[in-house]
């Protein structure tokens, strides 16, 4: 028996598919016919093969039958007519409904026949709605154009959805789904379900199935189906799911003497515990169940209105500059009958005790609200976890930015012990180099590829020049190095301001770095940030390779540890210092190009990073690249972690982060990874 039923259902589906295919072929001969799904049984076993005459007749008959209603439709009664017409098979049904909704339908005054109208010079060309054949022209005076009101047009539009859902053009089917998702209504559920089996595009089929569940959970008359649909969304992170589920658990707050019968009560609220007493009383006032309390402004207005002979309610005007006197004056007015008595605190409490307060679900079925609540809770838990992941990614990206900004400093400050306050300005110079290159090379990918080595070259040269001219003379006076490089920093900043102006200059990322890697509606990370992360990793590797595997790195380490001994081994400390400083500055330039891609390039760009960069190096531990990495991770993670508590206030996050670092230095004054022994120096 069940086998037979299954077979019958399959056969019916087959018919539907075939009809859709034929409709498509009839409407748009150029379009390839929709291939029949091979999994379906052959349609020849269907009980009633579709014939051409059977297609035409019902529509024509329906139109003739309901001509009067169609001509003068009413929002209330036209529904069944539209449904009947929409159910009529045939390629002209959709065209007819579309014409009706577009006000292109007309009634011939002579005999009351309906036609689809088309402009033909001063006249109308008449088209038979049932056959699509032209039925001559008629002067405009002979035809009454039908203008259904917007309510009726809405009904027609929702009836049309079922045709658009089965439209041969996937783009139109997609558009219909979009429209359906926006203006979801109970009537759409049927057509949507009907269009499901015929969908051939897998992506659209998935969207349809999802939308079907979305509509089911809202409009299906069967609570069990709704619960099943709700539960099927458990763990779904889509915003639309939350938007659909939230109205189900929405509550209104009411005051009543007893629990309202038949209502789906979410919770009972006890004033003072679950709900503010003032809010509870306000609820009573709003419902007209209690007199309002007297606000200070109302009392003041009442007092002002009854000033007589320099006194109010028996209290002299001059005394009314404190609360007690005003209270007495108002009591005087009340006893004189000049003002309404206000609810006292005791009365308020008595009223509150007389009523009970409930949160009532708008949705009547407790099973549905419970399922929605449970699903939402599950979704929220998952959203929380995903936000944690997103935060982690943000922190990682911020850490890699700090690392990139600080790695040059890790060389000049960490390895050589030179405080370079102009480091931030080297970052800025790198960013401006990128900007200048883009003025000449318009291909953004190419210009970035040129800008990276060029920025390195420019800042390397600047660093070497600075080392030769200034820093070389100050190796034994670190505090004065700080001040001298600060002087260079303000000079460079002002020069940049004079050359490039004060407004921000764009450094545009190549197109393939636009956009973001979106994992779901919660977690996403822009490609630029990924690129910066990768760049930071590359530099980490480069630094390690340079220091541990090259002759230069060996000499740098030797000179840092003991310049005199290194010199007697044939290493030129001067040359090594110059190269090391140039290298650190050059890396700052490359970091500048990377930072310029997502930040505005201004003359103050470097200033924004200098304090954070120094803190990264100091917190991490001077003279150790892993320390710099740890410092960047800690500062980035900390800042994002604090921001998480108060997302709107990034300033506060930075403040607390700095305070935390000051305290952290107490416990590890030499940073996270402190050098020990002779290498630590002093």
């Amino acid at each position: 028996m069940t086998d037979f039923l299954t077979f019958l259902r399959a056969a019916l589906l087959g018919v539907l598919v075939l009809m859709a295919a034929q409709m498509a072929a009839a409407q748009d001969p150029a379009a390839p016919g929709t291939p029949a799904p091979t999994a379906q049984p052959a349609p020849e076993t269907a009980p009633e093969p579709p014939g051409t005459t059977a297609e035409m007749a019902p529509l024509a008959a329906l139109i003739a039958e309901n001509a009067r209603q169609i001509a003068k439709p009413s929002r209330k009664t036209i529904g069944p007519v539209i449904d009947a017409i929409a159910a009529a098979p045939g390629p002209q049904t959709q065209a007819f409904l579309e014409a009706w909704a577009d006000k292109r339908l007309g009634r011939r005054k002579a005999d009351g026949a309906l036609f689809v109208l088309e402009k033909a010079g001063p006249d109308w060309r008449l088209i038979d709605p049932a056959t699509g054949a032209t039925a001559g022209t008629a002067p405009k005076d002979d035809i009454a154009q039908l203008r259904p009101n917007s309510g009726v047009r809405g009904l027609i539009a929702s009836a049309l959805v079922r045709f658009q859902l089965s439209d041969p053009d996937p783009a139109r089917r997609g558009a219909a789904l979009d429209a359906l998702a926006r203006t979801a209504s109970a009537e759409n559920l049927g057509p949507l379900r009907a269009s499901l089996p015929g969908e051939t595009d897998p992506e659209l089929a998935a969207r349809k199935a999802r939308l079907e569940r979305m509509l089911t959970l809202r409009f299906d008359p069967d609570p069990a189906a709704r619960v099943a649909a709700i539960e099927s969304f458990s763990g779904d992170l889509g915003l639309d799911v939350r938007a659909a589920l939230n109205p189900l658990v929405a509550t209104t707050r009411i005051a009543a003497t007893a629990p309202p019968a038949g209502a789906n009560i979410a919770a009972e609220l006890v004033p003072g515990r679950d709900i503010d007493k003032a809010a509870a009383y306000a609820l009573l006032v709003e419902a007209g169940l209690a007199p309002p309390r007297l606000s200070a402004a109302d009392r003041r207005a009442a007092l002002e209105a009854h000033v007589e002979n320099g006194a109010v309610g028996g209290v002299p005007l001059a005394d009314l500059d404190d609360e007690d006197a005003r209270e007495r004056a108002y009591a005087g007015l009340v006893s004189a009958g000049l003002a309404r008595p206000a609810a006292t605190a005791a009365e308020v409490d008595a009223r509150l005790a007389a009523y009970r307060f409930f949160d009532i679900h708008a949705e009547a079925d407790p099973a549905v609200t419970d399922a929605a609540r449970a699903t939402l809770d599950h979704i929220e838990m998952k959203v929380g976890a995903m936000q944690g992941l997103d935060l982690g990614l943000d922190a990682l990206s911020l850490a890699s930015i700090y690392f990139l900004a600080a790695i040059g400093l890790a060389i000049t400050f960490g390895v050589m012990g030179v405080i370079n306050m102009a480091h931030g300005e080297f970052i800025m110079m790198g960013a401006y180099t990128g900007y200048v290159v883009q003025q000449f090379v318009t291909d953004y990918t190419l210009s970035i590829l040129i800008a990276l080595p060029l920025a390195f070259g420019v800042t390397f040269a600047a660093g070497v020049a600075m080392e030769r001219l200034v820093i070389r003379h100050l190796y034994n006076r670190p505090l004065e190095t700080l001040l001298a490089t600060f002087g260079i920093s303000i000079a460079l900043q002002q020069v940049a301001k004079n050359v490039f102006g004060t407004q921000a200059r764009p450094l545009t990322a190549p197109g393939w770095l636009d956009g973001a890697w979106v994992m779901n509606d919660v977690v996403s990370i822009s490609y630029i940030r990924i690129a910066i992360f990768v760049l930071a990793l590359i530099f980490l590797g480069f630094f390690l390779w340079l220091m541990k595997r090259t002759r230069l790195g060996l000499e740098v380490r030797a000179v840092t540890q003991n310049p005199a001994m290194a010199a007697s081994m044939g290493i030129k400390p001067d040359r090594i210092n110059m190269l090391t400083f140039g290298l650190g500055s050059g890396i700052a330039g490359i970091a500048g190009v990377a930072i310029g891609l997502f930040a505005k390039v201004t003359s103050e760009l470097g200033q924004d990073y200098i304090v954070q960069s120094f803190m990264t190096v100091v917190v991490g531990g001077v003279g150790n690249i892993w320390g710099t990495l740890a410092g960047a991770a800690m500062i980035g993670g900390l800042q994002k972690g604090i921001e998480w508590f108060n997302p709107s206030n990034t300033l506060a996050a930075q403040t607390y982060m700095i305070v935390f670092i000051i305290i952290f230095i107490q416990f590890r004054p030499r940073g996270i990874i402190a050098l020990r022994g002779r290498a630590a120096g002093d």
Partner: protein
Amino acid sequence: MNLFRKHPSLPVFLGLLAAFVLAVTLMSEAAGAGLVSTSFVKTLGKTLCLCLIALAMDLVWGYTGILSLGHFAFFGLGGYMIGMWLMYARTETIVEASLASGALPPTPQEVQDAIATQIFGVVGASDLPAIWSLAGSLPAQLALVVLVPAALAAVFGWLAFRARVTGVYLSILTQAMTLALALWLFQNDSGLRGNNGLSGLQNIPGLEQHGQDLVSLWFFWASALALGLGYLGAQWLVSGKFGSVIRAIRDDEARVRFLGYPVEGFKLFVFVLTAVVAGLAGALYYPQAGIVNPAELAPIASIYLAVWVAIGGRGRLYGAVIGAAFVSLVSTWFTGGNAPDIPLGGYTLHWVDWWQVLLGLSFVAVTLYAPRGIGGLFDLLAGLRAPNRRGAPLGPDQGALQEKEADA
């Protein structure tokens, strides 16, 4: 009197200061001469306040060797503390005048609400934050001018010195502190009007009947008095044993510690004392400037302070004063558009644009070639030269710097 005999620069400085004050007073508009405009009297008064904080900076850096990049934060805090009273009291008179026209006499609560709305309307708040609870009282806010910078300096200094954070690390840490404070003040919900800051401070409540020309002269006198007293006090402090100890800490901290001196205590004392002086200087400066906002506390301001002291010559008190006065006045002259532009054939050098570059480079030059700053010129005049040791060690042991290294 011994102090004056021991330090001939002290009577000279005080005498010059007195003569300067007298001259400006006689030439001011308040005296009727009108040779010096009221706004320039204000500029001079502000400059005297900057000289006072430079004096503090010289004590902490030039004498004790702590390169603090946070003293302008204390300066700004002092300004904020006095600004709170100025703003509250002035708003109170305005609000009371407007409420008096109402039918009922206002209650204290109503007055306070109206003041809060008036002051905080600009940041979209209407409640008086807790930190403003003393703002109605002048003595309390004057006490806070001293106490707030002192407390911040004490907590920060105690934490930093206890952990033996020294040298450039300490400088970076003080800079971080300043940045944290500035960022905190930038927030609207920190209760100090966010980036709007406190404004209208030039209107002193209770002195409305006197014109700005008179009030600015009074503030000029007060600033000069504060600078004179500060100079005297600083000279007294560095002349005694205390001065010897802090100079010794500057030159070799570890050695002083091993001699048994509580180095941290000395450093903390100097740090807190100079923070208080900076707070007082700020409290005198901002009523003359009229507005205080978080940008004033930015780390860059504190670095400029170090620049002034370095250019003037650190390690001598008059050097700091000269540096602050010279750089800030020259800076006003250049940025005010008074300096003549230099045509360079095709490009005209506008000093408004290029002054910062000149300042930065001259600062580098001073650091490299004239570590004694402008004050060093007086040594040259007096014929004082550092003895030429021909590269011999500066200290007694082998680890000490060779003279040629130190000079390099």
